[in-house]
């Protein structure tokens, strides 16, 4: 069953289409990766789905309801949460207080979840630390923990593996799989193909705001258009 359905989704900035008539269906309980070169419209797509931008045209259907143009806080209440390309936190608050913010914002969340989320994200040992003092890898996990505290059905992860070392990337892959196994749907953007391909159930390649490819990881690496536009012949 489709949890998120994008129909002819378009976003123009002064006439230039960053997302151009995109059609996409995200099934419940899957990990869908969106890859593509810089400027292909991936982050704009996240901003549209999470309410940070309003579509110029087209529809965003989430759980049967048209949500295009709704405010981010309303979408969080519907069950859509996101992280950002840069590691973001509330820097002067403790890690625990960071993860508690969604609880203060929404009746959906409860404080009983916070310890579990911190433990799941490997942050229980630093829960009293100020967020700004965390190393980069833990800051990225903190971003995911804040998003999880909203109790999302659909989690949008914007380049979660960017800048992580091998060990941290492996931990993060395991965490994303866990989230899927818990019943969440994960939509993720990343450039790191060795990080994305093993965990994604399906992959979509975007190019100039349009969908170039949609399929499994195995199909992707064999697709000549994807090799030509994005992966390069060295990758194949």
């Amino acid at each position, binding site marked *: 069953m489709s949890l998120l359905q994008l129909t002819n989704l378009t976003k123009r900035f002064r006439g230039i289409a960053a997302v151009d008539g995109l059609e996409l269906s995200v099934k419940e309980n899957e990990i869908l990766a969106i890859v593509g070169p810089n400027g292909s419209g991936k982050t704009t797509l996240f901003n549209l789905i999470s309410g940070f931008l309003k579509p110029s045209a087209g529809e965003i259907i989430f759980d049967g309801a048209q949500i295009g143009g709704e405010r981010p806080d309303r979408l969080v209440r519907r069950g859509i949460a996101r992280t950002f390309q840069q590691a973001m936190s509330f820097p002067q608050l403790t890690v625990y207080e960071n993860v508690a913010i969604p609880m203060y*914002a929404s009746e959906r969340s409860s404080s009983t979840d916070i310890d579990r989320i911190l433990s799941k994200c490997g942050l229980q040992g630093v829960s009293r630390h*100020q967020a700004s003092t965390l190393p980069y890898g833990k800051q990225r996990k903190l971003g995911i923990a804040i998003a999880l505290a909203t109790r999302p059905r659909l989690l949008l992860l914007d380049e979660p593996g960017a800048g992580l070392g091998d060990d941290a990337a492996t931990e993060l892959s395991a965490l994303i799989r866990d989230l899927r196994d818990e019943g969440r749907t994960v939509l993720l953007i990343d450039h790191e193909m060795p990080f994305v391909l093993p965990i994604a159930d399906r992959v979509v390649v975007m190019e100039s705001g349009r969908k170039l490819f949609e399929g499994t990881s195995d199909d992707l690496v064999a697709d000549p258009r994807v090799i030509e536009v994005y992966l390069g012949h060295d990758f194949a």
Partner: protein
Amino acid sequence: MSEIVVSQGSSRRIPWLSIGFYLAIVALGFAVPQTLVSARIVHLCVLICIYGLLVYGLGFLYEAAGQLSVAHGALWGIGAYTTALLTLNAGWTFWICLPTAMVTAALFAGLLGYPSLRVKGHYFLIVTFAFAEILQTINTNWRGFTNGDTGLVIAVAPPPLGPISLQSRADWLVFSFALLVLGIGVLAILRRLPFGRRLSAIRENETLARAAGVNTVRDKVLAFMISGAYAGAAGACWAYYQHYVNPHQFDSHSGIELILMLLIGGIKTTLGPIVGVIVAICLPDLFGFSAAQNEIALGVAFIAIILLMPEGIVTFAQKLIHRLRLINVREL
């Protein structure tokens, strides 16, 4: 539930310095009227309490939205004019005018805040400056309603309310001081409620706060309204204490003065606002400055503080104490 979160997540130490300072101030505030200090000192203390309400309200808006508003002087004027007009035209007493002034100023703050809090930094400052100027123009030129430049005189004192009587300056000091303590206490409670936690999130990272489900516009407007209610209360007290209101008391210049008081004391500390007010009110009096000299002195003090202690007097003092402690530890 919220308390569990705070206790588990907070790594803050008990602020003994602040607690001690406040206890001393509370003791002093209630003791001064009972002692034989001069009427001038009592008057200054009343002014400190009224300005304290204003500057704490302004500081709360900064905490919430990370914004400084020049309109706070105008909101103070709305509270004062609401009180004066209702007293003179409708015969309302101070005790009814006080909450009405708070609500009126809060509503104006909401009307101003809803469109203006969407813009940031200098733009917000300009919008609030324009609001203050518009209001002053209305107060000056709508003579049939506000009596223009001549202003309005309130020749009556508030009637006693139970044991509370506001007949003398000493009475006013006790009342305005109690109001200030109550105001600071309410803000302290608000900071610990989910609303206050959301405000801290907005101040820290508004984009992430939105992604975490915080309705940032609603919370910022609400914070502006609370801040406006404080200005309204200060306006009501001002009108009855000074017995006189005129448009020039509440122009954009007064709004800038309030910002200076906040910055001089320190914007990030609980003690900062009251220290800033004490400096701005007492120093000119100590040196016997005229109104014009006072403005120059405030400007010079501000420049000196920006250059020497950019985070304000209180943060500077805290850092100094911390450094002295470190030196003592090293010597041991």
